């Protein structure tokens, strides 16, 4: 446990001592701020029907998805690829920590960083709460959805970072896989058979987020995200074991 903690701590130090963290954070806040402004302007229009404003912020716009699809590979690309390139992986994997612990440590650190990115968005919640009465149930559910989505996306990024030694290639691969994972569910409406439609619907991340943002915590969505996360982390561990010494 102490070893895992040391790994997480080192990884967080690496995040916050690189300019990347601040660039990502700034871009993130800029985009989210712009989206928040659009949402408020849109809802202020008297023709708009009443709805929960944060529902739009949490996955209701394409900005949210575009940004997540881009930013998660950037967060994860360095994790293992860089260690392999510089050779620090050799030292790490000849220390008494297992490959699983290394993967877990990196994953936890990336997730902490991801949550840190979302932390400032509570300002929007505070702004809305101080001007109107808002229901905090859907807010918490929305953040839960964001956290689950983060787990899934980050695990994909960590896997691709375990496969290659070049960060950029790791990021591009992660982006490609994430686009597939994300768009699987979107073709739901194109499918004909009920079974196929149902299966694709189960994988529709946009709908998942929509439900969470409405305040619906559906255990099916949670199971879907967590099981895929587990699968990708398992594959990352195996990839790391198989590629040692290369």
């Amino acid at each position, binding site marked *: 446990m*102490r*070893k895992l*903690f040391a790994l997480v701590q080192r990884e967080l130090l*690496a995040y916050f001592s690189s300019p990347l963290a601040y660039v990502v954070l700034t871009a993130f806040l800029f985009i989210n701020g712009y989206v928040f402004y659009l949402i408020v302007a849109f809802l202020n229009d008297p023709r708009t029907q009443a709805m929960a404003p944060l529902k739009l912020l949490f996955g209701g716009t394409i900005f949210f998805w575009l940004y997540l699809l881009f930013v998660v590979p950037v967060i994860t690309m360095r994790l293992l690829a860089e260690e392999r390139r510089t050779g620090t992986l*050799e*030292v790490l*994997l000849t220390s008494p920590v297992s490959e699983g612990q290394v993967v877990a440590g990196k994953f936890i650190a990336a997730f902490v960083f991801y949550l840190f990115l979302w932390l400032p968005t509570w300002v929007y919640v505070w702004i809305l709460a101080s001007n109107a009465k808002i229901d905090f149930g859907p807010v918490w559910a929305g953040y839960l959805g964001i956290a689950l989505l983060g787990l899934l996306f980050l695990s994909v990024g960590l896997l691709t970072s375990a496969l290659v030694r070049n960060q950029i290639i790791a990021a591009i691969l992660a982006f490609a896989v994430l686009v597939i994972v994300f768009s699987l569910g979107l073709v739901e409406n194109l499918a004909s058979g009920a079974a196929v439609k149902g299966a694709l619907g189960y994988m529709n991340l946009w709908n998942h987020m929509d439900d969470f943002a409405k305040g619906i915590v559906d255990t099916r969505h949670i199971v879907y995200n967590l099981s895929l996360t587990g699968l990708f982390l398992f594959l990352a561990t195996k990839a790391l074991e198989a590629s040692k010494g290369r």
Partner: protein
Amino acid sequence: MIEVEGLTKRFVDRDAVSDVSFFVPEGEVLGFLGPNGAGKTTTMRMITGFLPATAGKIRVAGLDVERDPLGVRARIGYLPENVALYPEMRVEEYLRFRAAVEGIPRGEVKARVDEACDRCMVGDVRRQLAGTLSKGYRQRVGLAAALIHKPPVLILDEPTVGLDPRQIVKIRELITELGREHTVILSTHILPEVEQVCRRVLIIDGGKLVADGTPEQLRSGFSGAAEINVELEAPEAEARAALEVLPGASNVRNEGSGRFRLAVDGGADLRREVFKLAVAKGWVLLGMAQTVPSLEDVFLRLTTHDAEVGQEAQLEEVASA
């Protein structure tokens, strides 16, 4: 302490290491010699478990590398050939991190870091970012990290590369000192280093073990390598003929102005015979010296025959690194 049996590593089209076996008893400092690409690093990586072996068995402190990789890793301190540190960490932070990863109790970490810094002479850069260190300091920080948990086995891949001569002396002293409490495997190209530090030497070439013994054994087991240089005032043709018929002498060369060089078979000492010959013939003996084969001669003799293979291997090693 370390048992290696029939160790083989096959890369796609060639054997980087083939059927290497050796045993290192506790407390021995073993020198691992070989030209570039001979398989030194590959062998060391297999012992640490970083590289899986194609065939063969490795046991460290009685533990099988394949069955109990974590147990083996905990007992080894490893300094890789290219010492890689995290550039964004300070030296002290890095050593603390390594101590934690090695499972040193929290209360002891500070003492261990202090001790390692002292031993490896990196106390003056403790607060410096690892990314800004010179090669010599990086090397020593890597060494400090490798011995922070006082492992029974130390594996050092070319530990003195990139150090200045004064640091090299210090590090060699340190390794000799470490050899009293640890079992050490040390790879190097530098032959005097091996003679100073190591009690036993393995020479590996083209992935095969070609010699195993103490430096003295290797030298003496090498028949026909001793040579005598003689300087005589004598008729050259006659002197040459007389030297050639001395028992054990061969390959007599006249190097001009009365200097002769003759090889001696079987490690015999022919100096007495040469002296008596000169006296009997009434020649004046101006000088005579016997050269014993150095470890370098042994090394070159054992490893030059297929230098091309070595170069190829080196290229591949670079490509795969």
